[in-house]
């Protein structure tokens, strides 16, 4: 690992002694009944690179959006150089000296690079040196943004932010899609910025980067500030601890007979599966009667893996087998016909929200020509059985969108029970669901597995893994980097592996 960039000498070594450049106090934000930020504090000193860390859903993105003026905070104050500022729009945040590079570059896809820059009030001559600084000296300003690759857009967005010469540069997951050499450039830009007495707020999932380039790190958990640390010797474990909190006492589920599952026939197998840019050789086996957990930080290829498995996207390399036979679905319809079905995180994506419960459950049957004529009687029976089995609350059954989130998710699972399946793909199915329904869904998935179904279960909540999974895989950077028995999987190990820290995989 290269040496850390030295701190600028004129500012002293202890960053916490310096005057704060940005001071956010008690920032709160809720969306309806969901609390995104309870009370977040953040202090960034002048001349430091400050990391903002937290597990998925800890509130990092919400805090950044508030500081960028994209969304208003419900409560709290923001001070820049000691003076309170109002951040009612991105333009106002920029005037206050805060510039942000978002995960999705904020560039207009149908306009040329030059037009985009003009829109931000930048003449081409003014941006040239900054483009050179981020390694885009030869960029064609006449190119249409839509036709440029994502890494170029990230760097272009960075150059644009730099050209406004902000006091505080906020970089949200900027290295996520960047090749290593370009990430290096970004780090050197960050070091320059610090040397000039300005600051950088760096949001990342990669702890190794934090250890290398950041002076301090603020950790959020459940929408609160939990710690501000100096990542130093042995820092990673302290950071991981702060992100997790005291190791939560997970209620152990009833002991299950899990022996022999890996001897059962393989229902789904991936061999070095690749998909352009996202999957770099994913291999795993999913046995009948097994719930296989999958864990990853955002953007490590898990979305693409599920898209490929469910037939929404083709794969371009490797092999995929269902029950030992090659499987290359051309569409979700095709995948469903082969018995590979998906329960997505966004329930409304899968449901027909304006239609009644019964139609939603029976939708999987409508594909079969033989059923076009003999539908109703049989359909009613099947639907009734599933409603009973899943204990779906049918008081609001006239329109699926009126059901609670938990009941909607039961509908999505129930649809496949009505239609039948071989492999059930669950992508974060308990997101935003109350605890009681969660447990019902866990129970149901276990039951299905005991009956011989194969379930692939991606979750963003690590504590779910030992509750319902037999084995767990960890994805990082488009491949499976870690595998273990779920019963022995503690959160720290999984999180370390998910951050790409190799030593944890031993």
């Amino acid at each position, binding site marked *: 690992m290269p040496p850390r960039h030295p701190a600028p000498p004129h500012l002293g070594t202890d960053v916490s002694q310096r005057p704060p450049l940005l001071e956010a106090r008690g920032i709160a934000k809720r969306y309806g009944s969901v609390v995104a930020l309870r009370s977040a504090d953040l202090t960034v000193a002048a001349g430091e690179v400050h990391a903002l860390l937290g597990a998925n859903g800890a509130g990092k993105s919400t805090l950044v959006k508030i500081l960028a003026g994209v969304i208003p905070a419900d409560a709290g104050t923001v001070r820049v150089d000691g003076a309170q500022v109002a951040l009612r729009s991105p333009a106002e945040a920029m005037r206050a000296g805060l510039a942000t590079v978002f995960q999705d570059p904020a*560039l207009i896809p149908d306009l040329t690079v030059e037009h985009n820059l003009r829109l*931000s009030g930048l003449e081409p001559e003014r941006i040239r040196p900054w483009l050179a600084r981020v390694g885009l000296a030869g960029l064609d300003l006449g190119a249409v943004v839509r036709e440029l690759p994502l890494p170029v857009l990230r760097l272009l967005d960075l150059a644009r932010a730099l050209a406004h010469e902000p006091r505080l540069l906020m970089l949200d997951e900027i290295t996520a899609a960047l090749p290593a050499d370009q990430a290096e450039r970004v780090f050197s830009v960050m070091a320059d910025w610090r040397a000039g007495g300005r600051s950088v707020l760096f949001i990342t999932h990669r702890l190794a980067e934090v250890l290398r380039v950041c002076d301090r790190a603020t950790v959020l958990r459940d929408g609160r500030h939990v710690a501000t640390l100096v990542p130093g010797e042995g820092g990673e474990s302290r950071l991981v601890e702060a992100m997790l909190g005291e190791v939560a006492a997970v209620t152990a589920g009833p002991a299950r007979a899990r022996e022999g599952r890996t001897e059962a026939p393989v229902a789904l197998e991936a061999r070095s599966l690749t998909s352009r840019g996202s999957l770099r050789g994913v291999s795993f086996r999913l046995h009948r009667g097994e719930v296989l957990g999958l864990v990853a930080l955002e953007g490590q290829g898990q979305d693409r893996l599920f898209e490929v498995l469910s037939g929404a996207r083709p794969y371009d390399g490797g092999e995929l087998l269902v029950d030992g036979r090659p499987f290359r679905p051309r569409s979700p319809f095709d995948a469903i016909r082969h018995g590979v079905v998906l329960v997505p995180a966004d329930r409304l994506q899968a449901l027909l929200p304006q239609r009644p419960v019964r139609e939603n459950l029976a939708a999987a049957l409508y594909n079969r020509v033989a059923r076009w004529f003999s539908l109703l009687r049989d359909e009613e029976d099947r639907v009734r059985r599933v409603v009973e089995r899943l204990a779906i609350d049918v008081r609001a059954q006239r329109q699926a969108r009126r059901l609670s989130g938990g009941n909607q998710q039961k509908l999505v699972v129930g649809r496949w029970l009505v239609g039948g399946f071989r492999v059930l793909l669950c992508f974060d199915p308990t997101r935003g669901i109350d605890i009681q329904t969660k447990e019902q869904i866990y129970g149901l998935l276990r039951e299905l597995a005991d009956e011989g179904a194969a379930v692939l279960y991606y979750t963003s909540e690590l504590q779910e893994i030992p509750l319902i999974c037999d084995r767990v895989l960890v994805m990082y950077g488009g491949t499976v980097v870690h595998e273990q028995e779920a019963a022995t999987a503690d959160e720290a190990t999984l999180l370390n592996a998910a951050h790409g820290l190799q030593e944890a995989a031993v």
Partner: protein
Amino acid sequence: MGAVGQVVAGRLGGEWRRLVRRHGWTVGVWGLLVLLLLWYAALIPRFGPFAIASIAKNSLPTAYLAVSQAVVVIAGGIDLAVGSMMVLANCVSALLMEGQSFGTTVLIAVGVVAGATLLNALVGWVIVTSRIPDIIVTLATLFVFGGAALMVLPSPGGGTSGGLRFVFTGSTSGVGSNYWPSLVALAVPLAVLAAWLGRTRTGLSLYAAGSDPNAAYLSGLNTRRAKVLAYAIGGAFAALAGLAVTAITATGDPKFANAANGTLNSVAAVVLGGVALTGGVGSVIGAVAAGVVLFILKPILTAMAIDPNTAQVIQGLLIIGVMMVAGLLELRRRRAG
């Protein structure tokens, strides 16, 4: 460095080729227009200044409406009321201009344009403030403006000055062989608008608001203002269409069918002219050419002694055909690139 290297190397591919590719649609529509004009010239026995003047002046309302619709669609909206705004402007101007001197009619014309601009700005403001979809609000205003025209002028009537007729038609009687005034009346406002849209920050913000409102907002642009502005400009051009009708016919006609036709033609012109209905893509110059293309079909069919009512069928087929050819070309370009 792979991706970056590619982009840099792409620069050597030739400025010219890229220009043609980017404005390919506009060039294509103008080419189609030229072809149709040549065809028309070959069809009729005496093609001369009189025929040119006839096309130039009679296509003015369609062309203005195409511009009006294009500006709004580029900014991510759609204005179903452009036709009835045209009819309203026609009726108001004909009513007020009857028996007036040239000077007075010019003042009235300016007033009508200004009024339509403000009225449509208000429509835009209602849309961005209430967040009711554009198509619903402007469907409502289609009826409101259409009804207002009937209230202003319950039956056809009114008039205008010979001078104003000259400005749009090239003749104080509305019939003649001087086509320059009609061309100038279209080209000048069009050139000003096109330059403003493509070269100023505010003009570009219309494209930005239509292309990706979220990214535009994150870049610090005022997307609401951009949309209100687009509707205001659309109103001005719809009023110009109304004034052109007054000048050509020397009367005001409140018939609702004119309004509905005008709106549908404007949407057709926008689609044919290469402006994406999803916003952010296309140019007003392409839309104008498409507007004239749609207009010229009728005289061509008449010259071929085909029932002009067939024109509507052909118009529809032409739109589908052009869209399919464009889709095919785009597909080939992607495969090649």
